[in-house]
């Protein structure tokens, strides 16, 4: 009797010791559900339980900030969007990972440099491990571009072949042409105020060679390129987008595309497997991915990080090591995940299943992220508001961008980055 009691007691004790539960706030995107499906393996291997709280992107920042400021974070592990990759380390909320990496010989050389710069290092210190990428590109309907009647008409009208657009002007023209000549919308846009419009518009800005700030952190969003990018953006919005696009976020835009009502979208590369899935989409088999017309799109990505005030730092690191191990990283990719590592992008099995992944790697290598600094979130907020005002016609493009530039300068000065 007593023997059994001892056994039970020690078992309970062991459970108590290993029965750590890691709580993680995750965005409601395919990658999250892929990892969730693999979690039982981690739990079986380590005895550490992992609990995902899955929410919409727009709720995450507001949920995370109070937790990160409090003495005890209820989340033991974070996924950090590149929008916050400047803010969180600058505020001192993240645990530097250099020591962990060195101690356990964790190989970070396999990650794309663009990913490591975006969601890895901040001011020379490693705070995050790149988790997945959402570099943006052009998703379009192959069948529309192959339509003989349309091709003929386009050639008559413009004296050129109707092909995949390679410059932004081409793209705008093709979208307008298709909306005028078919019952499809040219571009399923996501122009809702806030981060949807900013993300989509950034592709237009970057591909023309524009940027938010120059080298000295002076705002240059209102220069000639900025104005031109915005003009083209609003032209598509007016002539070649669904009528409700000004209130669309990525889900709304996806629905329009998946219903087969649009020719193209400037969107996240992970949209493609979703649109190619016959269970979820009417256009499966008809869609393809290309780089943003003009070459440079918006890079985006998430990184794993450990909050400074986490209760279970070692367990969190244990999880990162597992989820980013070559085997799991590859399996995530095979399940439709968006990799961040060379070896996964070019893995034979992965490429066989997703032939466009090398193209995604190309996107992610050349794409540019939004400026990362302490006030990135405010910057997005300001630019999103002003773009939305310009799009509704309540302000002229120049006025809106000038206001944005003024506030961007203020933020750069506040962060101590603005140089004379």
């Amino acid at each position, binding site marked *: 009797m007593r023997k059994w009691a001892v056994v039970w007691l020690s078992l309970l004790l062991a459970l108590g010791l290993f029965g750590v539960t890691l709580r993680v706030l995750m965005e409601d995107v395919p990658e999250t559900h892929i990892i969730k499906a693999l979690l039982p393996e981690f739990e079986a291997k380590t005895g550490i339980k992992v609990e995902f709280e899955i929410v919409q992107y727009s709720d995450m920042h507001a949920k995370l*900030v109070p937790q990160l400021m409090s003495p005890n974070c209820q989340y033991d592990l974070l996924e950090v969007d590149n929008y916050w990759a400047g803010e969180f380390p600058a505020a001192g909320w993240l645990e530097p990972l250099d020591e962990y990496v060195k101690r356990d010989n964790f190989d970070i050389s396999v990650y794309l440099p663009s990913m490591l710069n975006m969601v890895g290092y901040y001011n020379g210190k490693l705070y995050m491990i790149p988790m997945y990428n959402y570099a943006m590109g052009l998703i379009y309907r192959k069948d529309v571009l192959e339509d003989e009647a349309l091709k003929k008409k386009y050639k008559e009208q413009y004296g050129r072949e109707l092909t995949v657009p390679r410059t932004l002007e081409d793209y705008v023209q093709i979208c307008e042409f298709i909306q005028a000549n078919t019952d499809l919308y040219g571009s399923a846009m996501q122009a809702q105020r806030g981060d949807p419009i900013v993300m989509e518009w950034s592709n237009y800005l970057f591909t023309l060679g524009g940027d938010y700030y120059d080298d000295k952190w002076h705002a240059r969003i209102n220069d000639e390129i900025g104005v031109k990018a915005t003009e083209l953006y609003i032209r598509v919005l007016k002539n070649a987008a669904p009528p409700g696009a000004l*209130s669309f976020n990525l889900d709304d835009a996806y629905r329009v595309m998946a219903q087969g009502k649009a020719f193209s979208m400037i969107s996240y590369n992970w949209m493609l497997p979703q649109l190619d899935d016959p269970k979820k989409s009417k256009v499966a088999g008809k869609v393809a991915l290309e780089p943003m017309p003009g070459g440079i799109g918006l890079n985006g990505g998430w990184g794993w990080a450990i909050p400074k005030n986490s209760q279970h730092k070692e367990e969190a690191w244990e999880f990162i090591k597992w989820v980013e191990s070559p085997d799991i990283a590859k399996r995530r990719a095979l399940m439709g995940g968006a990799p961040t590592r060379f070896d996964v992008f070019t893995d034979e099995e992965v490429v066989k299943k997703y032939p466009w992944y090398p193209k995604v790697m190309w996107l992610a290598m050349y794409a540019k992220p939004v400026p990362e600094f302490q*006030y990135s979130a405010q910057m997005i*907020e300001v630019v999103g508001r002003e773009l939305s005002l310009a799009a*509704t016609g309540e302000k002229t493009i120049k006025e809106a961008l000038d206001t944005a530039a003024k506030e961007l300068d203020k933020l750069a000065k506040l962060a101590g980055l603005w140089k004379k």
Partner: protein
Amino acid sequence: MGKRRGSIKRSESLAGWAFVAPSLAVMISVVAAPLVFSLIVSFYGYTFVNPTFNVFLGFENYKNALTDPYFWNSLWVTVKFVVLVVSLEFALGFFVALMLDRVVSFKRVYYTILTLPMVMSPVAVGLIWKMLLHPDLGVLNYFLGLLGIGPVNWLADSTMAFWSVLIVDIWQQISFMILLLLAGLVSLPKEPYEAATIDGASEMQKLFYITIPLMRPVMVAAIIIRTIFAFRTYDLVYVLTRGGPGISTEVLSYFIYRKTFMGLNLAEAAATSYVLLGVVMLFVVVAFRVVYRSPHEEM
């Protein structure tokens, strides 16, 4: 005698305090304490990135808030929204309540249907309506299309978006008005009506000379409560439009939310909140002064 009565009174009031203490403690910790904290915060350079009381700014935050053109826009949107939503809900609600007061059969069915939108969370309501209002895939435009009315751009047109939010809010909140007013109507005394009928008063006369004067306290209470709630509308805007397109549906509470969690500027957001509090207080005080006089005072 006097001494004893005093001690009874004292022990009575002590007992009273003892009874109130628990709820008072809760109220202080969840209402008063945050209010005081945000008041203090509003005078400092307190932000999420730098959460300290190192920089005393005095009224700087208030000045910044009041000189921000977007603040004035939000205030205007809010006032427009509150006035329209409350008056429309009141007019429609009173009308429906009068009709329901006459209904004899199926009363329970009507009541159940009426309470349904009210018990739904505004976020759920917003999401449902967002689908209904979808310009391409929405049911509403489909039916309008059958009638030959072209697709309405419910949420992405800067004038229409405001009205769409208004319609959804009315759809959800009107039951509150109806139920409150109906409760008032049901509890009205029957005698004045009988007397008026005998004297040969018409239905219209009964409405204007009996029902409305007797209903006044209930009506005022309903309007004030609804006004206070309407000022706080946030969830619907959040789900339906995010304050857009542009800034056409940016009500003040949503403006403050954005300042706090997107702008991370807690201090200025707190100052703006206090301005909002001031506006609401002003509204309520004026409403009480002007409208809330008992019928006896008038006579």
